[in-house]
């Protein structure tokens, strides 16, 4: 209680301009120092990867290591491209990511549209079944799913990599939230004008939902591109591996003795996502924050 009184008493002092400036600046500098520390902790490992990929082998294996490459070279990149079939990995990763994202977005759009705008007996239970699928972590399904995929004969195929994770509850949920906030009058007006559901979906709902669609698509791209466990299990030849599996094998072969080449390979894996992230970080970050806070 006494503390309260004294601090109230000091209030007038705060209005004196010089006093105020002196008091407020120290925490500000500390905050900037904190921000710098965060940048360094996150940035240095990534910086380390990039400069190692630009160093000669001799330089990598000198102690102490250099913070700026003494004789920068790009030689590790072609070397990595040859040490593992990165061309094929890229092809596989891009194909799976593009097709997988397209199908997932399609499923999310159609399911969400149906759940919001179409009549069906007991559809709230259907929504619950879809939603509850979120509670089943894909990791625990690997053995049964491998058996299923093997029975269909899809081991080591694109469809085998894709199909097990292609259904979408997260996307359906996200878009359903978004669709249900749309003004009903627009939809009703379109119906009165004789528009059918396909027209309403394509011409009215999708354009309005564009931000949510972009967010969902971007998050899906990142997820499929980085997926590791399932492609590791379901592929068994270099011809079918995706980039994350490829970099794992490259580390296995070349690691420790050839860090420059391995780091160049790592740049191959993360560069596309870094570019996407720089370009679309607002969509991704805000999409994720909105999803969680809405609850």
């Amino acid at each position, binding site marked *: 209680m006494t503390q309260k009184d004294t601090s109230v008493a000091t209030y007038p002092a705060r209005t004196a301009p010089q006093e105020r400036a002196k008091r407020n600046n120290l925490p500000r500098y500390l905050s900037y120092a904190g921000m710098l520390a965060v940048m360094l902790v996150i940035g240095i490992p990534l910086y380390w990867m990039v400069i190692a990929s630009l160093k000669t082998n001799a330089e990598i294996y000198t102690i102490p290591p250099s913070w700026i490459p003494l004789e920068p070279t790009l030689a590790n990149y072609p070397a990595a491209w040859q040490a593992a079939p990165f061309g094929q990995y890229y092809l596989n990763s891009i194909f799976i990511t593009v097709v997988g994202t397209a199908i997932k977005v399609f499923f999310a759009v159609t399911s969400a549209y149906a759940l919001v705008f179409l009549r069906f007996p007991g559809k709230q239970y259907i929504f619950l079944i879809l939603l509850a699928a979120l509670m089943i972590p894909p990791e625990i399904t690997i053995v*049964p799913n491998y058996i299923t995929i093997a029975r269909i004969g899809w081991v080591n195929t694109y469809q085998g990599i894709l199909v097990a994770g292609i259904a979408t509850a997260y996307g359906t949920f996200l878009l359903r939230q978004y669709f249900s906030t749309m003004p009903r009058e627009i939809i009703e007006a379109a119906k009165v004008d004789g528009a059918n559901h396909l027209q309403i979906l394509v011409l009215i709902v999708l354009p309005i939902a564009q931000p949510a669609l972009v967010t969902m698509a971007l998050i899906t791209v990142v997820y499929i591109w980085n997926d590791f466990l399932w492609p590791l299990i379901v592929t068994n030849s270099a011809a079918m591996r995706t980039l994350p599996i490829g970099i794992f094998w490259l580390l296995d072969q070349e690691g420790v003795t050839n860090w420059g080449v391995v780091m160049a390979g790592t740049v191959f894996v993360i560069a596309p996502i870094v570019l996407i992230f720089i370009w679309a970080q607002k969509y991704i970050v805000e999409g994720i924050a909105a999803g969680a806070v809405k609850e």
Partner: protein
Amino acid sequence: MAAVPTPNPNGLPQPAAWRTRFRREWREWLLFALFVFPNLFLFGVFNYWPLLYNFYLSFVDWNFIRADILWVGFRNYQRVFSSTKFYEILWNTLVFSVSSFIFTLILGLAIALLLNQRLQGRNLVRAVVFSPTMLSGAAIAVIWTYIFDPRYGLLSEILGFVGLPSPNWLTSTFWAMPALIIVYVWKNMGYSVIIFLAGLQTISKDLYDAARVDGANAWDRFVHVTLPGLRPIVFFLSVTTILQSFQAFDIIRVMTGGGPANATNTLIYHLYELGFVSFNAGQAGVVAVVLFIIMFTLTVIQFRFMDQSEHGER
């Protein structure tokens, strides 16, 4: 909901009403089915069916190849629960999850509070701190394997600068787990920063102003305004972070392979190992069942709590 016909006393739609409804709406029902059932069917095959199948597998002896699948009752459970390795693995999972959770939440909150001020460049820092969550776990694990290299790695250089010898991080039974936790927290704390920041924004400025008028200092405001305001977020993040850490696989596979001597073997890694290294479908089934029960319980607790907090506060 509005289209539900008047129910009969049993609460079920009368057959006649149903039939007229069908006659009127069958086109819409058909479209609904076309739109939803593929998604639903795939969930059935690749999410719900595996739950039952895991349960079934946990009672059989099978190596994925043999034609005959042997029913062995509870023998797989006995085998798994009587091996000391399983308890080591449970312990490792607990250590990994709890430490990741504590560090992710504390660092996430600290950074979020830092970035919640009006500082120049805070959006850049927010993007940078979040960026590792977007990157391939396998690639991150490869980078950190290099950083942890006891001779040529970055950490040995930094430790040498301070005058400390570098531990053999990934080949030491003591240091391998801390190394994994460091990488995991480094990669994932950005997510909690984003969520905390969003949560901080929902706390009304009026509360802070009121506290200031009452003479509360920064610490008092943090304890009495910020923390209570963040309670639902903290709970959401706790469960999400723990659930996610149970699923950490890529960094373990790449950095340690569960070793040395099982020091970093966790439930999910053990499941992979039993299934796809020793081809023991039965024991893999047991581990999958155990893992599912743990994670399911956590999710149910989360839903329960969220319901309560929603009804309680509004």
